């Protein structure tokens, strides 16, 4: 069974146009900046927004196809949705929230409650059956929301930023649980997220959306290794430049500046990627083997884990990641004039 979608949704001044094919038993992460169309895609798949054109099928059943006038409303689709702010019904306790979908799909109350109770036990809330949503912590509420979406046994599970509203510690806990529950859910899984860690930990496949279009598709490893948009590069902390490669092993960057690269095979438009750890920062013009060195001014210094991320404005502007010791030694603070250097061999070039 699989989900296929030729999704086209026209909104005021915005068009979402993507093609997807997702197999049961796999998780696809849809990532992208705000306004990329992620939520619109989820709503179209759930049936909360009708397609303008195209076709969505799930396991051979057509869910939406404007050309033939077929449109299954959300309540008739075998779909479960986990929403960002959990959207539990405030007037029902945890048990009845989970039982809601079973009741709506025709089960009798005792039976629905029995199944719901099992699901709550399974997500680790055996002692919270009678709690109202406002009595639950953020992590517990999101677990109830997951149980509620899974209880009616959907064929497609949509998760719209399920971890975004949680604090950092809770998020990693719920993420770990989510990974476990996704693995045991046999249907198609679609996860919308803006967090690269979610994508890396939870997804088999990543779809990068930008301005309503698919920018890139691949495994998390592929996307991280070869980010094609500035947005993804920002996320993984990579410096991404676009430019034109010449036969002499130089890349003339679109935003100004020239990089000497080791790979002189390619010519024409390219992406050049530089890991921030490969960028060194100096008070004076460095001497040595680095073939690329240019001056700039530090605009920001921010901690990333046990290292510091230093943003340097120059031609081009880059992000460097250096150790705290290095920062203390040479005194890197905002507005310091510095030199940055990158070895030619540290620059990855691939066709644009």
């Amino acid at each position: 069974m699989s989900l296929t979608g030729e999704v086209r949704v026209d909104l005021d001044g915005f068009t979402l146009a993507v093609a997807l094919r997702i197999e049961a038993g796999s998780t696809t992460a849809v990532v992208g900046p705000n306004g990329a169309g992620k939520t619109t895609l989820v709503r179209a798949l759930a049936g909360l927004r009708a397609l303008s054109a195209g076709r969505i099928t799930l396991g051979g059943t057509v869910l939406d196809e404007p050309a033939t006038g077929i449109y299954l409303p959300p309540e008739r689709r075998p779909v479960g949705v986990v929403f960002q702010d959990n959207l539990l019904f405030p007037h029902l306790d945890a048990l009845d929230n989970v039982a809601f979908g079973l009741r709506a799909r025709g089960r009798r109350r005792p039976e629905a409650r029995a199944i719901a109770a099992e699901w709550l036990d399974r997500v680790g809330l055996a002692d919270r059956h009678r709690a109202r949503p406002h009595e639950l912590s953020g992590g517990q509420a999101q677990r109830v929301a997951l149980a509620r979406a899974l209880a009616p046994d959907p064929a497609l599970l949509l998760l719209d930023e399920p971890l975004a509203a949680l604090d950092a510690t809770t998020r990693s806990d719920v993420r770990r649980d989510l990974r476990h529950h996704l693995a045991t859910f046999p249907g198609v899984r679609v996860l919308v997220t803006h967090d690269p860690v979610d994508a890396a930990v939870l997804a088999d496949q990543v779809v990068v959306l930008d301005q309503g279009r698919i920018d890139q598709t691949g495994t998390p490893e592929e996307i991280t290794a070869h980010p094609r948009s500035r947005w993804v590069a920002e996320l993984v902390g990579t410096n991404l430049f676009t430019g034109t490669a010449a036969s002499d092993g130089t890349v003339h960057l679109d935003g100004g500046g020239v990089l000497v690269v080791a790979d002189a095979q390619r010519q024409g438009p390219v992406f050049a990627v530089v890991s921030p750890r490969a960028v060194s920062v100096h008070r004076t013009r460095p001497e040595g083997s680095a073939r690329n060195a240019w001056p700039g001014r530090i605009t920001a210094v921010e901690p990333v884990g046990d290292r510091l991320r230093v943003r340097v404005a120059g031609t081009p502007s880059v992000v460097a990641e250096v150790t705290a010791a290095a920062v203390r030694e040479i005194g890197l603070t905002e507005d310091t004039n510095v030199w940055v250097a990158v070895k030619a061999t540290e620059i990855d070039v691939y066709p644009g």
Partner: protein
Amino acid sequence: MGEPRRRRRAEGIPDRAPLVPVAFAVVAVLLFAVPLAGLVWRAPWSSAWEVLRSQPARNALRLSLVTSLSATAVALAFGVPLAWVQARVEYPGKRLVRALTTLPMVLPPVVGGVALLLALGRRGIVGRELDRIGVHLPFTTAGAIVAEAFVAMPFLVLTLEAAFRSADRRLEDAARTLGAGRFAVFRRVTLPLVTPSLVAGTVLCWARALGEFGATITFAGNLQGTTQTLPLFVYIKLEGSNPDSAIVLSLVLLVVSVAVLLALRDRWLTAR
């Protein structure tokens, strides 16, 4: 320049209560309190029970309960859908409809009664047709119910419309993805979400219907046992032979009003 500025700052510090507004506020409070105190003071407590047990008073009480509850039922049956449509459906002329359905709140009730009489009376545009099929509204209990609903329904509609508007629509989306159709969503999610406002609006509507005077007497008349509701009874008795029973029944209406206010205290007696 320095002098006025200093004075302004001094005024900002509330070291003592400013006399002028407090004095006016006290007068305002007295305006409300004195008449009510007078009513309680003048009440013929010893004969109160007797008055309440007298046949005319019981008739008026019973009739008021019947008409006000019926008017509330009518308001619920038509007002809940109206509030929902106003909150959720976009259509041309919506503002006009809102103005129209709010008008009875500010319209003098007697004008409402005249209008009802002209439209639904024997010779009115609609009344003529109703008459032909054997439905008579003026000077009947049904007419009193219509008059009360006309005046009271806006209180329910406005309260409920605001609630429908502020209910989180995404919860309804969530319910639909869980397999609930439109009506099931309304019944099992939307209605529970607006229940506090539904209760408040209903109580408010009922209280207004119970106290209705102008539209009722104009449209339905003042027939004992048929259209003479409590307020009409009070008015007639005060003018006539038995002011004591007017006072006692006024007290009954006052008690009901206080009870309504207490029931809705979370809504109105708590400053937000």
